[in-house]
């Protein structure tokens, strides 16, 4: 899957959580910038797993120590791209 397609799908998922249009989500924004709380994050990760058929290593107890970088929308795109490569070849 091309990285642009991954980015577009993640922006859609994040936009849905933030109740925004995809065009209003920027890759350098953080989830906090977008008003997404811890429940929204867990729901977004679920949507990512379902969309890409991957498993995302994320524990809400230690978000900063998870291998999955959620520091910005762009970071999530990069992390998911890596997982798709690792898990889907």
């Amino acid at each position: 899957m091309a990285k642009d397609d991954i980015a577009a799908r993640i922006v859609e998922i994040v936009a849905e959580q933030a109740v925004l249009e995809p065009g209003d989500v920027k890759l350098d924004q953080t989830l906090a910038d977008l008003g997404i709380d811890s429940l929204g994050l867990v729901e977004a990760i679920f949507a990512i797993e379902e969309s890409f058929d991957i498993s995302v290593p994320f524990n809400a107890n230690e978000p900063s120590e998870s291998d999955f970088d959620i520091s910005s929308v762009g970071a999530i795109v990069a992390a998911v791209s890596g997982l798709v490569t690792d898990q889907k070849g």
Partner: protein
Amino acid sequence: MRRVVITGAGTVNALAMDVAGTIAAMKAGRSGIGPLAFQDVDRLTVRIGAQIKGYAPEAHFNRQQIALFDRFTQFALLAAREAIGQAGLAFSGALADRSGVVLGNSGGGLGTLDDNYRTVYAEGKNRVHPFVVPKLMNNAAASQVSMAWNLRGPSFTVASACASSNHAMGQAMAMIRSGLAEVMVTGGSEAMLCFGGIKAWEGLRVMSKDGCRPFSLGRNGMVQGEGAAIFVFEDYDHARARGAEILAEVAGFSMTADASDIVMPSRQGAARAIAGAMRDARLNPSDVGYINAHGTGTAANDKTECAAVADVFGPDADQVMISSTKSMHGHVIGGTGAVELIAVLMALREGVIAPTIGYEEPDPECSLDVVPNEAREAAVTAVLSNAFAFGGLNAVLALTKAP
């Protein structure tokens, strides 16, 4: 106002099948947590829990009973048998009419639901056992206890997630205080360790895959357990008149709602519940020697709970011991406050404070005396037991030494 005392206690949990064994395990700081064993466990990412190993329903119940009793009901009946046996009460006539049973649970017959969903959805069958409904309903345990011991007074089930059994025991206490009942059989049970039960919890990403380490830096979530604990609450004068052995007094209770978030705990909501229970029991911070914590081992609960205790206790927070026995028996969800009351009775009656095991490293955000890893001898006369549920529903009990 009438006073309420405890005259019987019973439990089954991953540590032991009775109170004496559970107390011995808590004194030894033994863990009941290990690999889970049930159908489809290989499809889970979380595969540890405090499961009652080697449990065989056939050893305790006949075929007809097993057809009607989900695991959470079986646990409740076994714990009730021990508790009512210790209290030495038989219920008939006017006493039966003025005695009831209020139990807490969260999942009801979740195992029954899971088994039968598997039957109709996965296996494609169009027929299920005729007793699915009376087996899975959340009030099945309370009803079966009422039937087994002829408890004909106020009886129902309380569901407030992880605070269910504390809320139930609070109701039982209030009924005796107010004169609605003479004796109440109360506590809670839970049997959520099945594929669907754990799969649902996995989704929230708050479960640990490797262990329950409350208050310890680097803790990474909760570990579920299963079991029940049941107590006989009794009017003090009634207990004294019949010469019953009194295990402790239920001196205070408080419940609050955070009214803020469906999963994130609130420092203010917890603090109001702790302070309310102490006020109800007429206890000052310096009177309270031990707090049995909610202490789930999640990042959010433990730091919020410590902050709430610090708020209420002020400078006395450094003197009070606070431990989480979930590190040993796991989080028994709707039955957890009841199982944890065993540690409360141990503290008051035997002067031994149960440890928080699995403790590795201090967390500056949990800088209270959490009784790490080893039980401690200490004479205490008043204790609290906290329960703070998802949904922001909090219930705190205050117990004192037998009068």
